[in-house]
């Protein structure tokens, strides 16, 4: 796996902020975009994308690549992703270790796979094919899952490690997802981090969640809760500075200020992190 650039702290470009985010005077280092919102789309979305591109690096983070699903990869989707990555000169792109399509029907959710060697063998070549087709390094995100699927023989950390190693891709470590999964499945999130190939972590997601009776839901309702910040500090102590994104998708505030406040907090933590990856291009 090639070393990935360090980008600093970013936020996602959301509809609510198409006008305000590109005009912000606050510190911001990069912007994440969902390709599903921008590929083949003009008008205000495209204006916002181009305005952000003029100021910051852009990283596409998808939800419909379907690396885990049974259907063939969607050629038209991959072509669109490649065009977007080329147009913004994306340093890398990412999606989730999950499936979202069955028999041509998009379920528009990140659905969990059985965690076993058969799934590793299914997913890894699909990731390699997608990365080759798009022509950029790929980062795989650890998703949340509310139940362990039948036929699982590996624990979550082992499954994730096996897939990224077999696919030789990077890891987009969503620390809210780690926290939510730890609560829903009763494991120790720090031990989970210790079991991962942290040298592959190219980016982190920080987000919020909703606590419901009997289950914690991965809703990306911000701000980032304290246990997730504590996991972030533990991670940084292990990895050094790592590209970080504030993910806030539910009840998005009308002004990006609250997201940028969270970004400031992450940036402050990054600034105090001992640089253990000084060789990384762009690391502080």
């Amino acid at each position, binding site marked *: 796996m090639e070393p990935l650039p360090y980008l600093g702290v970013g936020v996602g470009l959301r509809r609510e902020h198409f006008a305000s985010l590109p005009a912000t005077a606050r510190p911001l280092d990069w912007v994440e975009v969902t390709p599903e919102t921008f590929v083949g789309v003009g008008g205000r979305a495209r204006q916002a994308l181009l305005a952000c591109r003029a100021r910051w690096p852009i990283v596409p983070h998808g939800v419909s690549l379907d690396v885990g699903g049974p259907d063939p990869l969607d050629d038209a989707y991959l072509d669109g992703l490649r065009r977007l990555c080329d147009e913004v000169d994306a340093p890398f792109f990412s999606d989730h270790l999950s499936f979202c399509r069955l*028999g041509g029907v*998009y*379920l528009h959710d990140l*659905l969990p796979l*059985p965690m076993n060697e058969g799934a590793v063998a299914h997913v890894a070549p699909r990731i390699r094919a997608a990365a080759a087709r798009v022509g950029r390094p790929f980062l795989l995100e650890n998703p949340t899952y509310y139940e362990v699927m039948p*036929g699982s023989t590996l624990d979550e950390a082992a499954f994730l490690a096996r897939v990224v190693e077999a696919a030789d891709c990077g890891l987009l470590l969503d620390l809210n997802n780690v926290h939510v999964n730890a609560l829903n499945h009763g494991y120790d999130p720090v031990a989970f981090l210790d079991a991962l190939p942290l040298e592959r972590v190219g980016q982190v997601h920080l987000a919020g969640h909703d606590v419901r009776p009997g289950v914690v839901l991965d809703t990306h309702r911000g701000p980032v809760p304290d246990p997730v910040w504590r996991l972030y500090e533990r991670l940084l102590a292990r990895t050094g500075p790592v590209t970080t994104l504030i993910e806030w998708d539910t009840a998005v505030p009308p002004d990006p200020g609250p997201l940028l406040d969270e970004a400031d907090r992450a940036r402050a933590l990054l600034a105090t992190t001992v640089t253990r990856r000084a060789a990384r291009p762009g690391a502080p």
Partner: protein
Amino acid sequence: MTPDLEAFFAAQARFFAAPGDPAAAAAALAAEFPGWRPRPARLVVYAEAIAGHVRATLEQVLPATRAAVDADRWAALVARHRARRPASGALAADFAGTLDAAVVDLDLPAFLPALARLEWALVAAYTAPDAPAPDRAAVNPTLDALEHPWRLCAYLDAPAPRATPAAGDEVALVWRHPATLRVHHRPADARALLAVKVVAEGIDPVAAAAAGGVSVAQVQAALDDAVRDGLVVARSS
């Protein structure tokens, strides 16, 4: 793919396509895998999230279509609809087809598929790709024309709750203004259609005036209005 993984996906497909009670579908899914002891409530989270997303997206994108059917038939339509595009915002793109197939057996109002097409056209115009600035006057590439035997533009503009749309042939024009990026809809009239035809076919305004029995000034005024309204994109200077 291993046979186990194939069986897993087949069971998932049955689970998500199961009509009605998610708890019953979750129990049926669990029963397919001996030795698997899932918490059914956790499986229900997925069934409800996926159905809820379809319902919420359709209701957000097609509010007038939603308002024109009662809750029971709406629930049946949501359950039948299948998203076939990777963008979740485009989930409503094919909903008119779901309505076409359901008009008879769900006894839906006959105008409903056309209304859904019109509401979707507003979204499609809003998100349509940008076109490069033309080197001569051109029809706005986001312009769509929808023909139906109801006055649906007026229906859409009326405050809810709406009565049944008036009968009468209509060509509804839907487009995104190239300067303001706002989406407009209105019934086509003879002047707008003349301007679009003159531009689309590159007809000389003098010839168009002679053919239509109107003055050149009238043709020119129709063209000027079409540019002002954004139906026609002027040559970039």
